[in-house]
């Protein structure tokens, strides 16, 4: 009875505060068109400034590249914390995997998943996608290995040491591009314009494809490490 009264009071309070927020939001201006200033500038001059057809990628890896570096540092911090809390023992103890049919089917599909992730990473400046999105698809391969084939298979094929090397390579690639920007262009993480080709081709947009590759490696390896740490502990509890 007391529980029910508590629920009703909380629902009433949340409804009242939600209504207050809603009627205050109605005062805000509604955008019918893109406002002037930074958005209009990026749409007008983003292609000539960076050479990247995808303007979201142009913002993430050129105008706000320093912010993206902080973001990848956040992923690194989360991975470090999770591994520090969960890892007690390096050898995985896991299930034996799913049935024969599932194993053969995923054996045929896995190369195409890898190809798709590499496509999304490398074409980040031409089509929707980029390092973060492609990196998540790359991490899906490791998750498929762990669930379908058992995590001993994942440990042999795609070991934690290799994932650590991949993540460090991605971070160093990003930072070294930034330092090269200091020497060649004058600012940290400035776009290396002398690398650029014709806009619309694969090797264009200066240093944006290289940063995409580094971010993709880093995110893929980081999420795979997170999943690996979690699954190792869970299955060990059950056995």
């Amino acid at each position, binding site marked *: 009875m007391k529980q029910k009264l*508590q*629920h009703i009071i*909380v*629902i009433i309070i*949340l*409804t009242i*505060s*939600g209504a207050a*927020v*809603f009627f205050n*939001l*109605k005062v805000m201006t509604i*955008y*019918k*068109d*893109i406002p002037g200033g*930074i*958005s209009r500038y*990026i*749409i*007008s001059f*983003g*292609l000539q400034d960076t050479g990247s*057809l*995808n*303007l*979201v990628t*142009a*913002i*993430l890896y050129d105008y*706000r590249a320093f*912010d*993206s570096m902080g*973001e990848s540092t*956040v*992923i690194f*911090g*989360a991975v470090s*914390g*999770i591994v520090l*809390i*969960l890892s007690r023992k390096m050898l995985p103890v896991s299930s034996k995997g799913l049935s024969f049919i599932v194993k053969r089917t995923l054996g045929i599909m896995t190369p195409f998943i890898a190809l798709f992730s590499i496509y999304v990473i490398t074409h980040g400046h*031409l*089509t*929707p996608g980029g390092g*973060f999105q492609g990196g998540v698809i790359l991490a899906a391969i490791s998750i498929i290995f762990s669930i379908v084939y058992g995590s001993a298979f994942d440990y042999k094929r795609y070991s934690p040491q290799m994932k650590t090397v991949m993540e460090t390579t991605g971070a160093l690639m990003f930072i070294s591009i930034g330092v090269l920007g200091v020497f060649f262009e004058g600012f940290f993480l400035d776009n290396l314009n002398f690398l650029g080709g014709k*806009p*619309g081709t694969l090797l264009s947009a200066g240093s944006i494809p290289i940063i995409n590759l580094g971010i993709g490696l880093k*995110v893929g390896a980081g999420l795979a490490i*997170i999943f690996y*740490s*979690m699954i190792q*502990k*869970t299955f060990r*509890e059950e056995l």
Partner: protein
Amino acid sequence: MLNNFIFVFLFMLGLYAVIMKTNLIKMVIGLNIMEAAVFLWVIAFADVGKDVPIYHLGRVGENFNDPVPQALTLTGIVIGASTSALLLTLIIELNKFTDTIDRNKLKGLND
């Protein structure tokens, strides 16, 4: 109008889960619902044009959506995924020590 209503509804739904649910994993789900509400709202601001902001296949800049909120949302999604993973890890560790993930059955926090 409808954007604002859906934003407020989803946000308060997530806040209700965070306040009232005693299962810790459901509290994390509530936090994720609140995040998703904010992302939907910010993306709805950006929807002022007719086309995605990519110069491809003869698209012109006049019709584009606003690319800046989309880039900000991408940043937010990555940060949200990292914090959710860290919270779930802490819950796994808590379950190892206390054999419960119920907020009311935890000893040592209330007394």
